[in-house]
Structure formats: C-alpha cells, structure tokens
C-alpha cells in the first residue's frame, strides 16, 4: 500500500524555522524517554538546529514560525515545492502567533524604537504560512504538544487518518478536575479554544490564552455572555483573544 506517495518505512523529514522562538522545533528533542524510538521512525534530512547535514530530498516539511520578512516568502515557497506534505508547525505558523502583536503598530515605529536609524526589513504584519503556500496539516500550540506531534507523525508513517480534537479545552480541564478559573474571577479562553494540550494552563491555575485557536463550532456569543454575566472585564477578554492571533475573525464580531 502506498499513502501520500510514501512507500519507504522511514519518513524523510525536514524541519525549517522562520520568525519565531524555535520552541516548537525544540519539542522534537523532548520526551526523552521515547526519543530514540521516535527518531528511529524518521530519516532527518534537514534540521539545522541539531544537525549540520543539509539534504534537500525530504518528503515531509515541518515549518515553524510566522512570515515577517520578504526573503522568507521565497524560502517558504522553495520548501513547498520540495515537500510532498507541508505541516504548519506551531501557533506562529498556523495563525501568525504572538508575533502578530506588532501588527497594531506601524512598522516604521517598530524599527525606530528598536534600531533607531538603522534600516531593517520587516513586513507590516506577521503572517501565517497559509497566506503564501498550501498547508496540508496544521499542528497548533505555543509550543506544540510533543505527544500530539508523535501521534501525527506516527499516523503519517502508519498511514492512519489524522485529526485534531474538535472539542474545547474545557473538556480536558474538567477531566483533570480543576476548579474553574471563572469561579476564581478570571477570564479563561478554555470554552472556545481547541483542546489537545491537556488543559495545561488552567491546570497550572493560569487562564487559557487560546494558543491552539478556536475549537470547532464554538458558541462565541454565549462565551461573551459568560464574561459579562460574571462581571469580568471585556477589555481583558479582548486582550486575551488577540494574544496569539487565532481569534481574529471573532474579535471583529459585535461581541
């Protein structure tokens, strides 16, 4: 059987980073107990952060980071041309990520504040990679959840169907028997964010900031009602919704 054009056992994989913190790539070196087994599945052809080998015959490209400079678009298109499967890897790549917080300032102001008179190339906006190329799969998260990455990579290797949880973070949060942060007077984006992180933030008693973007079929109106009914700040809610750039279409709703 042949799936997505692969007939070899080891997946030829490349990992590439654009404007980002490289935290998502770094997750590939985490979960140390299962790391040798995970690596055994892969033929790493190009992964600058951990290897000086650079081979350009990869099938799968994990693309991390958002696009904020003109030369990045060309590099991204070259990667797309080579890869059979291109994965948007992490929140920066999927949504533009927290880098998009700079979008609210004119780029001239950004450059002047940080570099003074020095000339620097930067785009006005931080772009998700699907603004420039076709993306086959998206793995959201800031950072990505290594377990989910393993599951998806193994699914590709074993030719199984791939999907992200459709339900929101609240489901996982309740499975972990946490006290709901709304009851402690905080605005949490758990009711509208896509699960798959095992509700790591609310489990650490910190509100979800929605790094995985919206879950399927969210009830945004009732979420904003909840915030109002609890007497919480809608300004704070909007700051949180804007944090990772995953909720832009909702932010513009009359909420």
């Amino acid at each position, binding site marked *: 059987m042949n799936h997505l054009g692969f007939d070899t056992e080891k997946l030829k994989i490349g990992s590439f*980073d*654009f*404007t*980002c*913190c*490289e*935290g*998502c*790539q*770094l*997750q590939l*070196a*985490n979960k*140390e*107990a299962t*790391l*040798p087994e995970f*690596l055994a599945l892969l033929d*790493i052809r190009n*992964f*600058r*952060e*951990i*290897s*000086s*080998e*650079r081979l350009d015959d990869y099938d799968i490209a994990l693309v991390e980071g958002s696009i*904020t*400079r003109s030369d*990045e678009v060309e590099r991204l298109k070259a990667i797309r041309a080579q890869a059979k499967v291109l994965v948007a890897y992490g929140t920066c790549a999927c949504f533009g*990520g*927290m*880098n998009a*917080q*700079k979008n*609210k*300032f004119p780029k001239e*102001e*950004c450059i002047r*504040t*940080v*570099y*003074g008179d*020095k000339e*620097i190339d*930067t785009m006005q906006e931080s772009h998700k990679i699907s603004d420039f190329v076709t993306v086959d799969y998206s793995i959201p998260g*800031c*950072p990505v959840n290594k377990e989910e990455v393993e599951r998806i990579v193994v699914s590709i290797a074993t030719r199984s169907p791939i999907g992200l949880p459709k339900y929101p973070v609240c489901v996982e949060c309740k499975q972990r028997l946490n006290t709901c942060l709304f009851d402690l007077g905080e605005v949490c984006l758990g009711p509208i964010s896509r699960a798959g992180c095992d509700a*790591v*933030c609310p*489990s*650490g*008693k*910190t509100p979800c*900031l929605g790094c995985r973007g919206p879950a399927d079929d969210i009830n945004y109106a009732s979420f904003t009602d909840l915030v109002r009914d609890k007497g919480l700040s809608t300004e*704070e809610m909007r*700051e*949180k919704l804007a*944090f990772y750039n995953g909720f832009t279409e909702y932010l513009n709703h009359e909420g």
Partner: protein
Amino acid sequence: MKVDFNIDIHHLPRVEGHGDIRISVRDGKLADAKWAVVETPRFFEVMVKGLSAERVPFLTSRICGICSISHSLASIRSLERAMQITPPETARVIRLLAMHGETLQSHALHLFFLAAPDFAGTPSVVPLLQSHPEVVEAGLMLKELGNELSIATCGRATHPVSLVLGGVSKAPSKQRLAEIRRMNVERRAMLDRASDFFMTLRIPEFVRETEFISLRDGESYPYIGGNLVSTDGVVRDENDYLLMTNEYTVDFSTSKFTRVSRESSAAGALARFNNNFDQLHPRAKEAAAAFGLQPVCHNPFMNNVAQLVECHHIVASTEAIIDQLLDDDLKDIRTSYKPRAGAATGAVEAPRGVLYHYMETDENGKVVKADCIIPTTQNNANIHHDLHALAEQALAEGKGEKEVEKLCEMLVRSYDPCISCSVH
C-alpha cells in the same frame, strides 16, 4: 605557500537561530572575519506596549524556546520591582528551582546535542546514538531531569504557565517534589559518566583576554537578581544595566553588539564561573579541578566545561532546595497587588548569561516602555573579535581552509548562542 580562500557559512547549523560566519584570507593572511546575525527581528519591546503587566511574562517568555523561564522571570522581576510587589519566600524558592531546571535542560541540550558532535566529528547526535549510546543516554536523562524540574515548578518545560506576578499560581505537589528528588539522586551517576566522556575530548587551545560580566549577590551562585559585576572590577546596581551594556548597532548584523570596559565582553557559564567561583558547591569545584578549570579562564572553548561544572552545581544543590520546599506548607505562594506606575530592571542569569528586562508601567499597570538585553547580544562582539584572533592564530599555525572552518564553527558554538533570542 600563500593561499586565498573564503569561508562563508550561511545559517550556521547546531545553534539556535540564524547567524553566518564570513572569513576571507588573502595571500595566507586574514583579510576579514565577521560574525553576522541575519535573524528576522520580532520587536518584543514594541509588542508589550499597552499590554497589561500580568500578561507580559507570557509574551516575553516567547522570546526564546530554550530559556523561556528566564525571560518570564526577568519580566516578572522588573515588573514586581516597578510596581513594588514582594513575592512570598516560598515562591522565590520555587522560582529558583525552576531556573535550575531550565539551566540543566539547556546545558544538556547544548553539551550533548549541539557541541559533542563537533568533538566526535559527526554531523549530529544521531550517529552518536550508535557509537556512544551510554553518553547520549546520560545526556538525555540529564536533560529530562531538567525538564521534570521545570514541569514540576512551572507546569510545562517550554513557556511556563504558573510563573506569575506576585509569586507562582500553583505550587508543585510534595509527592512530585519527592519523586524528582529521588530522580536527582539517581542521576548523579549519569553526570559522572558524562564528565568522564567530556574528559576524553580535546579542547582547542586558544586564549583571548576579555572582560566577563555576570550577576553576583555574594550569597549564592547567581541566578535571580544581584549586582552586575565584571572581571575588570566593574560593580553596578541592577538598575544601571545600560552602563553595563552600551548597546550599539553594526551594519552586518540584525542583532546589536555591546561593550563595557573593552572592545567586547562575554556573558554565560564561563563568566559566572569566573566571577562566582567561591559560591559553587564543593562537588562542582571538584569537577572544575578535574578539568583544570580555574578562574579567571580566558579560553572561550572552556565555556563548554563551565556548563558541565554548572550541571554539577545544580545537581548537587537541588536536593537541599527541594528539602526546603518539602518542609514548607507550600500555601503562601502568591501576593495580590494593585497596579501602579513605576520603572525598574529585572536581571537574571539565563543559561547563556545575564539577561535584562527593563519595564515601565502606568498607574493602570499597562506597560508603556520596555527594553530587553539578551545574553547573546552581549556575546556578539566577543564572538566577532574571537573569530578574528582564532583565524589568525590558526593561519599562523599553518592550518588549512577546512581546519580553520571547523575551528571557527566550534568557537561560535562554544558560546551556545541563542540567536533568535538576541534579535527579540
């Protein structure tokens, strides 16, 4: 024989971020040597403007995927000092343990995944899995111990969830702390095994005198806060960080350069070691002696050894920190506060060196101004001048193009640069 060649390493591999090494040799003489950072800037100092102080550490931690705990704590420290918030003692100890976890994880990543292949002559750690499985296993287990410490104290290894203004939002459970304590005891043997391996490696001989900058509080090996000190005798208050950095731009780099008393200076494990040797745990001092490392050491390649010595310090002192937490009821972990206007610097010793965040808030607790100066920024000029001196030395010793290239790559890597962090 007079030779001409150019070394042009585009996007140096096995470092975090994008930097180039450019060297040209004419008639057997060094004509030019550059350390050129080409990373895309992200403009964090602008992004935080208008953001609520409590949200800022969650944003600034994203400056770096390797040392997110340091960035989070530098922001927290600057904002707490700016808004006059004093976190409870228990939170201070939990934060210190978090720093230890991050440093151990980061040093293990650098030593085993990024630097060891240079010494072993392999392109990555993957061939070492076959040739030196016990060494890779030791590295993985130390890295995992670091990550477990971070997960227990911060909720997650990369991008902490429970480090917040006023303290920590959730304390680690005692059961988890006891487990990690056991893990720490067990893994001491791994560290000894790793040290034996590193003992067999030949460290290049190269010395260029420089000034080493770090924190020092005179009470413990430095991690969070303290005076800014240098091996040239400079001592400054944390809030005077600008006098300790003097940032400037150069036309070939998107990351800035800094200087203090000389043309360049260095931060990082070797700088901490050089300034705070007396505060190291005896077991770490023993490890240093076994490698012949003494303060003040001016060989940048010894930064790798200083990192290993710090791993010994962390593993040796972690048990006492955990015991302190096990004796505590872990209830008083977070102070509530009212937003207020203020300004202050927070300095912490990130794995790669002293990290400064400066923040100004308005009376509503929104950030109005910010400045972040990152360890690699402080090392850029030193790397740049070292490259020049090293290439000259290698040419004088009659080394050819390939050898010069390899040495230069190893030199930059020995600083463990964190480039996307430096272009924040």
